[in-house]
């Protein structure tokens, strides 16, 4: 079977974050792929709007294993979104963000402030003030958060121009666990909303896009697929399909059946 064609860039209905335009509503993580070549092919195949990146200590096995990553980033020329993964305190987040800004030469930051190591749930009590500090320091903050309406509203209040609630805990692939809260968020908040974390299937991505979310950010569901390149392509198509469906206006679900084939003129029909 020949490889599918790469997903084309979407210029008619771009994702707009902080006034900047992105040609895809899929944001793709770069971790856990079987090889750098597979990562590169997955990016080429899915054409994500941004790719997420991170920072680790030089001289460690992690950093050594990624020695070619910088060259790959330069070669791919896709906008990067550094994260603050693994940070448990606001000061760690702020310093990591400032270091990322210098290394990656970007003001974008995916704010991760972990409150619980078991679920990787964000520290919702300190997330808002941390986001505010970063915004005052000139960052374009995309906060990874829970689906709590008030939390998300407060993040918007302090200047976040987009919010990224989780669908489920990072890396679980469970899909949206709280559809009610996510749909409520979409109804109540006017800023761009991206579902970040917990998606496992293209149908999950399609579903949240059908609900009106503006984009999705995912990593593990692609990286750990048997064929990450094909799965990246599937997610990109699912995101596009969900977005198109949302814009198309879905029919209202009904309880009783309604024949789609005209009844008038049905052969062999007799009035009883």
């Amino acid at each position, binding site marked *: 079977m020949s490889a599918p064609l790469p997903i084309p860039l979407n210029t008619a209905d771009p994702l707009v974050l902080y006034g900047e335009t992105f040609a895809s509503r899929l944001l793709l993580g770069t971790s856990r792929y079987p090889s750098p070549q597979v990562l590169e092919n997955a990016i080429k195949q899915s054409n994500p709007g941004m790719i997420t990146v991170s*920072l680790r200590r030089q001289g460690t096995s992690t950093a050594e294993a990624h020695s070619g*990553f910088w060259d790959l980033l330069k070669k791919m020329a896709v906008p990067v979104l550094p994260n603050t993964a693994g940070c448990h305190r606001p*000061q760690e987040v702020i310093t*990591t963000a400032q270091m990322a800004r210098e290394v990656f030469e970007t003001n974008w930051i995916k704010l991760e402030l972990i409150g619980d190591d078991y679920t990787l749930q964000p520290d919702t009590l300190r997330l808002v003030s941390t986001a505010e500090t970063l915004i005052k320091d000139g960052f374009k903050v995309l906060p990874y958060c829970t689906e709590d309406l008030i939390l998300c509203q407060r993040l918007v209040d302090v200047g976040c121009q987009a919010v990224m609630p989780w669908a489920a805990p990072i890396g679980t692939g469970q899909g949206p666990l709280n559809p009610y809260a996510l749909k409520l968020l979409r109804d109540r908040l006017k800023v761009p909303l991206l579902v970040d974390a917990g998606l496992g299937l293209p149908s999950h991505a399609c579903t949240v896009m059908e609900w009106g979310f503006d984009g999705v950010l995912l990593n593990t569901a692609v990286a750990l697929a048997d064929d990450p390149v094909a799965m990246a392509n599937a997610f990109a198509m699912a995101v596009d399909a969900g977005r198109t469906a949302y814009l198309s206006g879905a029919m209202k679900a009904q309880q009783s059946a309604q024949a789609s084939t005209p009844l008038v003129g049905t052969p062999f029909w007799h009035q009883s």
Partner: protein
Amino acid sequence: MRVIVNQITREVPDNSSIDDVLLLIDAKPPYAVAINYEFVPKTRHAEEVLHEGDEMEVIAPVTGG
């Protein structure tokens, strides 16, 4: 004097700058530096002098989710 670089204790000459220590550990760009949890921009690496017990972090780009 002793400083801690990426959690490893190292003996460095007194009045060593960040650049001196980066040279000592053979840091390879791109990198960024923090001292005692505070970011220090590269424009200050030549002038910023370390002190006994300082904790220096030198980080590099890696993949992320």
